[in-house]
């Protein structure tokens, strides 16, 4: 019986991008279904009744929610191609720690860059750069966060890169000037087919930000 894989997603979502990348890395065919977050579909509400959020991965009719949980699930269901998590328990724990760090910190500070003004925005920019510098320091001189192979932590972070041009523009600063090594890492990741296929054009995100602000009711 062939696997049926559906992904309920929203094209600018850096969280949805994680799941897209993981599925592409494993060469899994999936049905991508664009969602309207301001008019949520019955299937979204049925498959993620607790949070009503995307992405939702539906595998043979059963939903898996939360992007990093989906990435791990995909790695466990399709283990033979391109392992996304290391096999060593200590290294796995480190990978999950950084995935958790990215989840807890990056989005919240980034939101202030495009969503806030004045002092609040400046504070967001400062915190965002500090967080990126912590990640840059963790990356060190490695090719990817996991070392030689592209994996979980790279997947957790790379989606945000599609938003960097927007952050630069709306924050009136240059992320590359502050974190050149991280930008170099991002450019390496984007060379991978799975990532190139899964990230939207940065200029589309730049165009999207004012639309998003209008939707959530901020100037």
């Amino acid at each position: 019986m062939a696997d049926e894989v559906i992904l309920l997603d929203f094209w600018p979502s850096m969280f949805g991008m994680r799941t897209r990348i993981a599925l592409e890395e494993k060469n899994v065919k999936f049905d991508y279904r664009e969602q309207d977050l301001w008019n949520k579909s019955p299937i979204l509400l049925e498959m993620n009744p607790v949070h009503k959020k995307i992405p939702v991965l539906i595998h043979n009719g059963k939903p898996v929610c939360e992007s990093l949980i989906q990435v791990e699930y995909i790695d466990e269901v399709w283990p033979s191609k391109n392992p996304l998590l290391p096999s060593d328990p200590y290294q796995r724990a480190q990978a999950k720690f950084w995935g958790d760090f990215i989840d807890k910190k990056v989005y919240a500070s980034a939101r202030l860059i495009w969503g806030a003004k004045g002092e609040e925005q400046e504070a967001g920019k400062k915190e965002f750069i500090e967080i990126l510098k912590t990640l840059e320091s963790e990356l060190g001189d490695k090719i990817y966060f996991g070392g030689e192979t592209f994996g979980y932590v790279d997947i957790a972070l790379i989606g945000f890169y599609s938003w960097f041009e927007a952050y630069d523009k709306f924050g009136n600063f240059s992320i590359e000037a502050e974190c050149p090594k991280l930008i170099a890492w991002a450019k390496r990741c984007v060379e991978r087919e799975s990532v190139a296929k899964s990230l939207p054009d940065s200029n589309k995100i730049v165009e999207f930000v004012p639309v998003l602000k209008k939707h959530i009711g901020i100037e």
Partner: protein
Amino acid sequence: MASGEVKLIGAWASPFVMRPRVALNLKSVPYEFLQETFGSKSELLLKSNPVHKKIPVLLHADKPVCESNIIVEYIDETWSSSGPSLLPSLPYDRAMARFWAAYIDEKWFVALRNFLKAEGEEEKKAVIAEFEEGNALLEKAFIDCSKGKPFFNGDHIGYLDISLGSFLAWLRVTELAASYKLLDEAKTPSLCKWADHFCNDPAVKPVMPETAKLAEFAKKIFAKPQA
């Protein structure tokens, strides 16, 4: 792999610290418990968890593992041949366990904390409603995950049991302070039975804080400064 000294930096009152302690007990792994003094952070803690500076931190042969749920998984994987598995074997069931553990930390526990902070009738009503909604979800999750067995993880305590069970002492303290039954047999009968089983498990009993002692501690740390 499983060799090397095990130390846990933590504190007796922390529900997050309780999680790896239960896991280590379930795997029969001896460890040295390094207690932090409330209100200050040791050099070892700051060195071992420079990013968050928080407990618990597991030190295995001096290598640190941080974040309670991540530590529990690490313990399960490292001492996999000792004791039952803490996570289900099927990927879908594992994803469910992780989903509910995330929900418990991000939503359920926040609602529990808000109970003590709520002031005035309106706010209290809202907090109660939010908490009960969460409980109803967990009651259903328990029925789905346990499949008729005593624990979320089946016959034995596992990752999700530990994630929720670690909050039971604080739940009891909150019930006393708020004079309100937070885990009600009438509303969530399965969860109540589960709580009983969890608290009586030999791996849990020695590390579950006593309600009275915890209530004393809570009074101290939440004490409003004198005007």
